[in-house]
């Protein structure tokens, strides 16, 4: 997806208070269709508002989505554009997007594939990301699992565990107060490892820098 395509893409803003939101990016769709909400269009921005218990929206593929809801569940299916979801307690599931910014104070966040940056923030619930470019993920006590990261990572957690599997040589900045940190880098990648700014493992030449800090949690950095 080129930058030009991104800027020209549709933007759909969705506002609800609770209930289930299902958004499907359909390669065959050319317009925004909604069941359970009112739709307003202004230029390239379409706004869907709803108080219904269930809201279903179909959008063209790679449409940008900005979603706000208090509670319930948000499911984004298909190949979306830049996706932002902000919620107090909804669980969030995003299958495929160009970029993601997903936040829920008490709902779990599951993200499939993200081409570019993946940002996610939760509190006590877990955050799972299958594959992404760069990542910026934070929780308070929820576990963070990043299974295949292709760009720089910043992960922050207070008492939960952080697991990061790098798919390429990129910098990692992972921080907990009491949670365990586990970082794996691909076989053959030479990582300069710094724990609490102390260089723990410094090869003469290195491909990336892994900064890991934990006040009391265990730290593991290894090659797969």
């Amino acid at each position, binding site marked *: 997806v080129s930058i030009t395509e991104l800027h020209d893409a549709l933007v759909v*803003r969705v506002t609800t208070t609770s209930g289930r939101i299902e958004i499907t990016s359909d390669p065959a769709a050319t317009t925004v269709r909604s069941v359970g909400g009112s739709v307003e269009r202004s230029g390239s921005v379409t706004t869907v508002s709803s108080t219904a218990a269930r809201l279903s929206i179909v959008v063209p593929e790679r449409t940008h989505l*900005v979603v706000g809801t208090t509670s319930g569940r948000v499911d984004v299916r298909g190949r979306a554009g*830049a996706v932002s979801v902000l919620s107090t307690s909804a669980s969030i599931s995003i299958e495929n997007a160009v970029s993601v*910014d997903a936040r829920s104070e008490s709902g779990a966040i599951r993200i499939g594939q993200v081409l570019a940056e993946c940002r996610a923030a939760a509190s006590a619930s877990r955050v799972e990301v299958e594959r992404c470019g760069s990542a910026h993920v934070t929780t308070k006590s929820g576990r963070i699992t990043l299974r295949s990261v292709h760009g720089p990572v910043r992960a922050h957690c207070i008492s939960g565990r952080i697991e990061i599997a790098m798919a390429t040589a990129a910098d990692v900045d992972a921080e907990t107060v009491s949670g365990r940190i586990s970082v794996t880098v691909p076989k053959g990648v030479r990582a300069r490892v710094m724990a609490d700014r102390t260089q723990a493992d410094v090869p003469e030449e290195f491909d990336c820098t892994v900064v890991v800090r934990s006040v009391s949690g265990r730290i593991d950095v290894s090659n797969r």
Partner: protein
Amino acid sequence: MTGHDPTRVGGALFTDIVGFTEFTDSRGDLAALELLERQTAVAEVVLAGTGGRIVKELGDGLFIWFDEISVSLGASIDLMRSIEADRRAGTFPLSIRLGLHCGDAMLRGDDVIGHTVNIAARIVDLASPGELLVSEHALRSAASDRLPFVAVGPTRVKGIADPIWLHRFEG
């Protein structure tokens, strides 16, 4: 009554040190005190000449008020960058997050109160470590078209009918 109008229009910025309680538990009160003093010192340097002032310290966070909305955004960005630079250099051990809103508020002695302040306090709760979130109203008021902000989404705040749209600084 003095006849003095306590109403002000300006920007309310809240900061929060992420993980401060656990840090204090692990490192002790002295380290925590040094951290708070470091945050305040950085903020005072950033605020010098902006018209912004630290209204009060709230636990591990700061409540900062700007009389000029136009400078509040730039100063908030500067504060975030300064603390992040210290964090990367290892001189500030934790991350901070920031939330900015603007609008009417009331002076009460040295304190500033009102809905604008309450909303800013809510916004900072939604920010991630090392992140500045601002309301759409603050963005528009500060005429910040050239700054890199990305829409995060709408959030509901108790007592306000319409959702507050939030934006993240991407710099």
